[in-house]
């Protein structure tokens, strides 16, 4: 059974179908990518899985449990963490507090517990803080950076803090919406390494949306390509790269045809059996 299973899900905004009858399976332990031109429906898919949008029709299953239409906090409690395309940290809270908010649904203390400060509440709080510090250090926000307001962190660290906050929710599946957007090449390499570590060491399955093809091809086990709300290709990086439909979606019909012609010409001249890879 796949960790995440989307069955014929559809999202209609008025007359526009942002996603139409998409089937998608994410196996446990994978780093999977969702790519496609702007407006292909990638973020819409994320928003439906995380509960911000309700699917118009279809089913979304996490570990076999239906999560389509559940409120975001319920989905989070069931084991789904996410980050946002345009960073959405709690800017006037410290980095540590941001991570602690992520732990919210894993903590038990109630409002009267907070007022009375019973021993169990204090113990839980101390443990949570310790764990939050560990998570911050894990993503590279160690030392005293935990006390910095989220809004005062440099851009690259804000992206990392978002990952730490999502990790704090104790997810089984993590959705990363353009985790390297706006990063310089050096930061991008660091972010890729972090994503790999999260999968390998913490055993968290990852689904990411990304435009940087170096990242996508570099870390994905499996890539799904969307265009106009429908799946046009799926497979390993090699398979997707070779798929003429993908080239067409990204570069247009004319360019795709031109590439095909050039390749055929090269193949004819050299006489070798070319597999069509760019």
């Amino acid at each position: 059974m796949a960790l995440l299973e989307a069955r014929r899900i559809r999202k209609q905004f008025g007359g526009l179908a942002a996603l139409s009858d998409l089937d998608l399976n994410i196996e446990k332990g994978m780093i999977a990518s969702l790519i496609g031109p702007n407006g292909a429906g990638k973020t819409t898919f994320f928003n439906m899985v995380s509960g911000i949008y309700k699917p118009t029709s279809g089913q979304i299953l996490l570990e076999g449990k239906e999560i389509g239409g559940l409120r975001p906090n319920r989905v989070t409690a069931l084991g789904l963490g996410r980050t946002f395309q345009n960073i959405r940290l709690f800017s006037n809270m410290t980095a540590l507090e941001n991570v602690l908010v992520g732990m919210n649904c894993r903590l038990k203390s109630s409002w009267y517990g907070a007022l009375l400060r019973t021993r169990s509440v204090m113990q839980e709080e101390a443990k949570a803080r310790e764990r939050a510090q560990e998570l911050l250090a894990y993503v590279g926000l160690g030392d005293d950076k935990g006390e910095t307001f989220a809004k005062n962190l440099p851009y690259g660290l804000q992206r990392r803090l978002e990952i730490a906050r999502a990790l704090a929710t104790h997810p089984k599946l993590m959705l990363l919406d353009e985790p390297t957007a706006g990063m310089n090449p050096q930061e991008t390499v660091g972010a890729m390494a972090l994503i790999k570590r999260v999968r390998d060491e913490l055993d968290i399955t990852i689904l990411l949306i990304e435009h940087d093809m170096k990242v996508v091809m570099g870390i994905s086990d499996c890539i799904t390509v969307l265009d106009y709300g429908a799946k046009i290709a799926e497979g390993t990086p090699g398979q997707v790269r070779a798929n003429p439909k993908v080239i067409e979606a990204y570069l247009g019909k004319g360019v795709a045809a031109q590439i095909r012609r050039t390749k055929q010409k090269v193949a004819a001249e050299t006489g070798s059996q070319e597999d069509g890879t760019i």
Partner: protein
Amino acid sequence: MAQIWHSLTAPWRAIPDRQRQILTLAFLILLLLTFPLVDKAFDRGGVVNDVTDVLVLVILALGLNIVVGYAGLLDLGYAAFFAIGAYTTGILTWPPHHLELNFWIVIWAAVIVAAFFGIIIGTPTLRLRGDYLAIVTLAFGEIVPVVIRNLGSVTIGVGSWQLLSDFNLTNGVQGLNPVGRPGLWGFKFSFDPTPWYYLILIIAALVILANVRLQNSRLGRAWMALREDETAADCMGVDPIRTKLLAFAIGASFSGFAGAFYAAKLQAIFPELFKFNLSVMILCMVILGGMGNIKGVVIGGMLIQLFDRVVLTQTTILARSVGEALHISALATIDLSLWRWFFFGLTMVVIMVLRPEGLFPSAVRRAELHAAEEEAPRAAEKG
């Protein structure tokens, strides 16, 4: 000047932080405890009475701070909860109702009823944000005094069957008078303001403690996360519905304390006491001091009351004597206390424009602002 001050305070700053905090706190507590004695010696206890009233408003400001400051829900009708607390006390102790329950029970009833109404008003507003929420709470603040005014004659019945006929619950415009007073081991609270002062001091201390503890708790962080970004908070596992309702309920319960105390001390409550003006004044206190910051809210509340009760009356006296001396009739008959709302409005505009974080932003935030200032030139050099 700065240097003299620096050298004078050097021994004080030499004390370790922790001990200095304890010393300050101990001094403050001693000051607050001995204040009525000092006041009696000089002024026959007149100021103690005023300070007691000020503390009632400070408690209200602290309750509103939970809703507006922590959870970021702009509530323009907070006085309604104060009214509900006061009227719960009044109804349960007004002699014609033949209940006359003990004040120490009634005060908790007031808290529970206020919290209940906090949830009632909270429920329909859960989907609203920002200005829409403000409008609904504004309406609630207007509805409550009107309802109270009209509950002087309650008739409940279907056809000829009547459960209640012309039942006088709130005594309409005249209000409830007298309201039951607290007693303790045979001692009755009456016109001497000193026992009232100590009682409100205890309530205020408890409310401040609750504010502090909630701020640094799982719930406090959830409130702040909702204030910062509701969608992101929801995706991080914070249940917005439950969390918002708790903010309304806990915020309202504080005003239940204040309402019960106020009704018992004043002995007479009527709907006119709980108008929109009061909601605005409490909101001013929270904003002036610094939203979400306990120390700021307390000091902000005191400053506004000091201005209202001392500065305005004293300047009026001064202006009048100047007017009489110079034979300017307009100045000689001026009453600045009629201008209070003008000054409140002006203060709000000035604060919002010049210092939107309030007069006393929290230490963390101040440190952060300084850090940002230091970073700025460095970043400029790099860029």
